[in-house]
């Protein structure tokens, strides 16, 4: 009898927090709202830590705890079941840990915003669904969490719902995700059809004995590709990445938690979770790798030309997610998850630090109007520098280890992946240091001492009307910078999480990719370079022995990727610090290319022309005007109008005139007589 870890409590804790804040929060003071939110998310984190401490004592993995049967139909049944293995443990700690830190940060960041309780209610709701997603023991339960985080994402992107752009960004995210979810659902149907179960364990046990679909694509390839469609939607991969940059309309802590650290990695998690299916479908794996590579590459190029600090980070997120899919595509699932974890640390940190910068300069997001901030907000600067070095792959920081591992595994699969990956690493380093130089170095280019209006949220305080009244409640630690304008460092409730995440960004990589891989091996399989092992059934798990010469190669690869990172740094320094006029001249020289990149390759416009406009046109003409207005409304209104017309005619029979009644009777009698005569003489 294995120990009962009461995994069901983990998602329920934030759900309780969401319910309390959501239902009663408008009557609470801000302190109480923050206390409730932090208590429940903090307890969830503590519980996750306890679960982690008990993890080694578990006898069977995955450790499944079934709470109740959800639905049953003949032999097919789906349970409310939670499972814990190495993969979900890593996700669990990342979600609760980073989530808790971002909750703390949000208390400071959101303090002066309207809808404080609403924000924390949504944030806790997100935690609930995300924990459901990572702990689910079957595909359908996972799908509940999957849709739920989409809902929370929609609610939080549209948090400033009085702003039109935020509302439409929320809708865009939701609708683009629907496209992905459509693929996911079909995949689930195929799984039910072929395996008769949704349970991870059962499905994978049934898949394992099957031969890999090396020649020709069968249903496993179909399932894998459809799952990938779902993952593309959730994790913002080509061609469904367009929602993520727009999602930056949400408050910055949301961008950090949902659109960088946790939710967008759900696709990677799901692919890694389904690795058994993917390993049996090499062509699907190749698609995953190619999509990942392309996304990493294109998003990075777009990131170079963005001027909004959050948009740069958004494209950077898309690009890093591409890396994770590249890793999954070449069979290095654990490397992908490793990068997922380190990325959660440093990208969460980057967003929080960017939020701190935005907070400091009074809501300005345009990097061209920043500059010289490092003296004014040193803590933000230091922590953001660490995160930037981590994402750029400077040796010794977490991003270096995970990215290097991915590139090495990609190289084993194909040099093309590796080349694109290294070039992307160079661009990553370039645009991140460009961001750093533009924001922190040089002289301040914005209006000095701009009024602290949180321009980003202008016109927002009106709809709840609580802002003014609750401003007196602001704690002393936070009140210092407000009311007199000027650039100021954020309060410690915001800086604390930055520092913790910075430490994690440094330390996270030292776990070591190999140790991490050995830890994850039971959950993600230990496939080496996938090209050599296209038939995973042949060899049970054992870490591939890397020959000595390949070790030499690995060092060479590492050297090249470090050089790429440093080159990016140097180029950014040259262009944005040493010779500030140069970028404009380069942009002029490469006018066409620059315009294309700055306009994000017109992908949004292309989608608008290809899909959105025809869809709206067809919907308007056929479904709205045609089906709805003409057929449905027409039938209904026509029936009603017909009845009224008929009644109007018949009404005149009831004239009240006795002789007309008598006439009707006579006519009726004549008809009856005529009929009887006709029948009688026939």
């Amino acid at each position: 009898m294995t120990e009962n870890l009461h995994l069901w409590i983990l998602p329920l804790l934030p759900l309780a927090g969401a319910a309390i804040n959501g239902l009663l929060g408008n009557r609470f003071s801000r302190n109480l709202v923050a206390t409730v939110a932090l208590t429940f998310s903090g307890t969830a984190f503590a519980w996750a830590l306890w679960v982690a401490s008990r993890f080694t004592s578990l006898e069977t993995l995955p450790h499944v705890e079934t709470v109740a049967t959800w639905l049953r139909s003949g032999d097919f049944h789906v349970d409310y079941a939670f499972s814990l293995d190495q993969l979900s443990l890593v996700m669990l700690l990342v979600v609760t840990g980073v989530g808790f830190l971002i909750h703390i940060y949000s208390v400071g960041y959101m303090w002066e915003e309207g809808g404080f309780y609403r924000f924390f209610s949504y944030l806790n709701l997100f935690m609930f669904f995300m924990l459901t997603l990572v702990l689910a023991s079957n595909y359908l339960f996972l799908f509940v969490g999957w849709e739920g985080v989409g809902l929370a994402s929609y609610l939080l992107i549209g948090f400033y719902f009085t702003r039109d752009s935020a509302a439409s960004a929320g809708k865009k995210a939701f609708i683009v995700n629907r496209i992905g979810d459509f693929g996911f659902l079909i995949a689930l149907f195929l799984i039910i059809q072929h395996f008769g179960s949704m349970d991870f364990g059962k499905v994978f046990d049934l898949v394992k004995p099957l031969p890999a679909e090396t020649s020709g694509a069968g249903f496993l390839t179909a399932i894998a590709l459809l799952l990938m469609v779902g993952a593309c939607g959730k994790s913002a991969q080509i061609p469904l990445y367009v929602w993520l940059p727009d999602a930056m309309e949400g408050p910055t802590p949301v961008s950090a938690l949902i659109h960088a650290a946790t939710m967008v990695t759900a696709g990677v998690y799901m692919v890694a979770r389904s690795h058994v299916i993917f390993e049996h479908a090499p062509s699907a794996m190749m698609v995953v790798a190619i999509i990942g590579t392309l996304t990493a590459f294109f998003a990075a190029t777009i990131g170079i030309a963005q001027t909004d600090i959050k948009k740069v980070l958004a494209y950077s997120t898309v690009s890093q997610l591409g890396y994770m899919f590249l890793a999954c595509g070449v069979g290095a699932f654990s490397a992908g998850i490793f990068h997922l974890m380190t990325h959660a640390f440093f990208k969460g940190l980057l967003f929080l630090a960017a939020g701190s910068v935005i907070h400091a300069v009074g809501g300005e997001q345009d990097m061209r109007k920043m500059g010289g901030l490092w003296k004014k907000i040193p803590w933000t600067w230091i922590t953001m520098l660490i995160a930037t070095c981590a994402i750029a792959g400077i040796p010794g920081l977490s991003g270096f280890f995970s990215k290097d591992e991915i590139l090495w595994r990609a190289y084993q699969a194909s040099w093309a992946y590796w080349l694109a990956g290294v070039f992307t690493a160079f661009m990553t380093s370039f645009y991140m240091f460009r961001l750093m130089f533009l924001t922190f170095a040089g002289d301040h280019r914005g209006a000095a001492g701009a009024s602290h209006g949180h321009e980003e949220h202008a016109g927002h305080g009106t709809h709840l009307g609580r802002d003014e009244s609750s401003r007196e409640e602001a704690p002393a630690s936070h009140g210092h910078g407000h009311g007199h304008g000027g650039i100021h460092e954020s309060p410690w409730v915001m800086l604390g999480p930055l520092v913790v995440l910075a430490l994690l960004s440094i330390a996270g990589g030292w776990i070591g990719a190999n140790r991490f891989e050995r830890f994850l091996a039971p959950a993600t399989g230990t496939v080496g370079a996938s090209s050599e092992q296209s038939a995973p059934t042949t060899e049970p798990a054992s870490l591939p022995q890397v020959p000595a010469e390949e070790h030499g190669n690995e060092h060479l690869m590492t050297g090249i990727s470090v050089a790429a990172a440093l080159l990016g740094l140097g180029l950014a320094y040259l262009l944005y610090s040493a010779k500030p006029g140069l970028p404009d001249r380069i942009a002029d020289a490469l006018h066409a290319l620059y315009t294309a990149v700055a306009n994000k390759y017109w992908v949004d416009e292309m989608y608008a022309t290809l899909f959105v406009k025809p869809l709206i046109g067809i919907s308007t003409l056929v479904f709205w005007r045609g089906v709805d207005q003409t057929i449905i409304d027409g039938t209904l209104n026509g029936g009603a109008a017909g009845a009224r017309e008929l009644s109007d005619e018949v009404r005149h029979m009831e004239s009240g005139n006795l002789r007309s009644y008598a006439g009707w009777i006579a006519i009726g009698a004549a008809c009856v007589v005529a009929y009887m005569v006709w029948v009688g003489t026939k």
Partner: protein
Amino acid sequence: MVPLSYYLVLSAILFACGVTGFLIKRNIISIFMSIELMLNGVNLSFVAFAAQWHNLSGQVFVFFVMVVAAAEAAVGLAIIIAVFRTRETLNIDQVNLLKL
């Protein structure tokens, strides 16, 4: 022996006269008389058939009709008097309170 058809034709003529009178007359008394004419037209055909088939049922039926008609005449005339007292007219077109 007068053939049956003669009685029936006379009966039909009487009935048609009653219907026509009922429809075109405005005076309630005239309408009332038209109803009596129709009833008696029908009575005539009953009696004619009874004589033809040597069956007394038709003649018995006629007595019933006459009894009912007498009762009806009593009630009807009472109603006519009541109507005339309240409305001071016997024109059927002006007795139209049920009109919507």
